[in-house]
């Protein structure tokens, strides 16, 4: 059992487990956390494949790096949207929102 095998198996398990949790989780913030963990699992598989060579393959590593930064920004956007979704109706302040329900 090489290090590669262990990490590949763990990555596959994490990706699928977290995705299944993402589909069944009602609470939106925990769904965002599940999404991040799922992407972590996928990245584990990619980096494990990249580390097979003598000289680590830089292209999957670059893809994972891009993925990490994008996931962080999208998590921020998702959390901002969740905050608006969960806010009390009268908290949705904004200029000119006079046509709201009483």
């Amino acid at each position, binding site marked *: 059992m090489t290090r590669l095998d262990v990490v590949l198996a763990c990555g596959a398990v994490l990706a699928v487990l*977290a995705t299944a949790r993402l589909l069944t989780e009602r609470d939106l913030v925990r769904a965002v956390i599940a999404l991040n*963990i799922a992407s972590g699992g996928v990245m584990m598989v990619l980096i494990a*494949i990249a580390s097979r060579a*003598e000289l680590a393959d830089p292209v999957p590593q670059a*893809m994972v790096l891009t993925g990490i930064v994008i996931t*962080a920004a999208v998590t*921020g956007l998702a959390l*901002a949207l969740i*905050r608006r979704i969960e806010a009390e109706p009268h908290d949705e*302040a904004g200029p000119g929102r006079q046509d709201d329900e009483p």
Partner: protein
Amino acid sequence: MMMAATAFDLVLVLALLASAGLALFLPRRSTAAVMFCVFGVLLATLWARMAAPDVALAEAILGAGVTGALLIDAVTAHPKAPDGSPAVRRRTHWLAIATLAAVIAVGIAAATLALPDSAPGLAEAVEERLGSSGVDHPVTAVLLNFRGYDTLLEVALLAIAALAVLSLAPGGEMPVAAEALDVPAPLDALTRLIVPVVVLFAGWLLVAGSTRPGGAFQSGVLLAGAMILLALTGRPALPPGSWLRLALVAGVGSYLALSGLTASGGRGLLVLDEEWAGFAILALETVLTASIAVALAGVFVASSRSSRLTAREAPR
């Protein structure tokens, strides 16, 4: 590379599975957020172990730092999840999902484990052309030269996400700093000590990316962390007003300008000639660092400012 799994590797993988499991299955939001930070730090250690230092740097800063800050901010604003019946009610549904998940996991594991243990991949192709790429580090060369188009799209996505979060701020105001009502003295002192160190380190990472692990992304997210710390202690963290919008689009804008120049006047879209590739990459990285830092810090400040406003207006 047939390296036997040492005890350290096994313990690390088990800890990853345990922290992920706790984050996914324990009921409280705050527990999930903190366990996710732990998961992020362990994941960064795993990347360092798997010969991916660039990824380890970015994961350490983002996973436990920026994303961790965003999550903890979200769970403190709304510690109780809104009540709702669980999405999956019946036992048969659970069994179906569990079976499907198991089948897919086994399939992925079998497919990836069947790959040869040692394959050259693209590392040699990158090594051959590294000399003419303008930098000496393969990952930086791939990110900013060979796969520059992907990086262009990524920076565009960051700018769009940041602008979307800013537009969600209540009242449509552009936030400059989150209002910190009462900053404890140790935190204030820590910020004053650490932020200059972090800025220095970010500058070094930016320049070091040409020859060793580092580069625009690591430097940008490190700066974002420093700006978040500034915002949490009530100091101005973001450029005000229209400078903010300018900083957000400067990264995409300069990348688009470079694409336009190379497509029309040069040899092809984002084909960097050997003579000026190094200079172009460093200049582009500098602008990207600022843009990435402002985008991520803006996402945090806009969300946290709006959270403070909604908390104040909620009925007591």
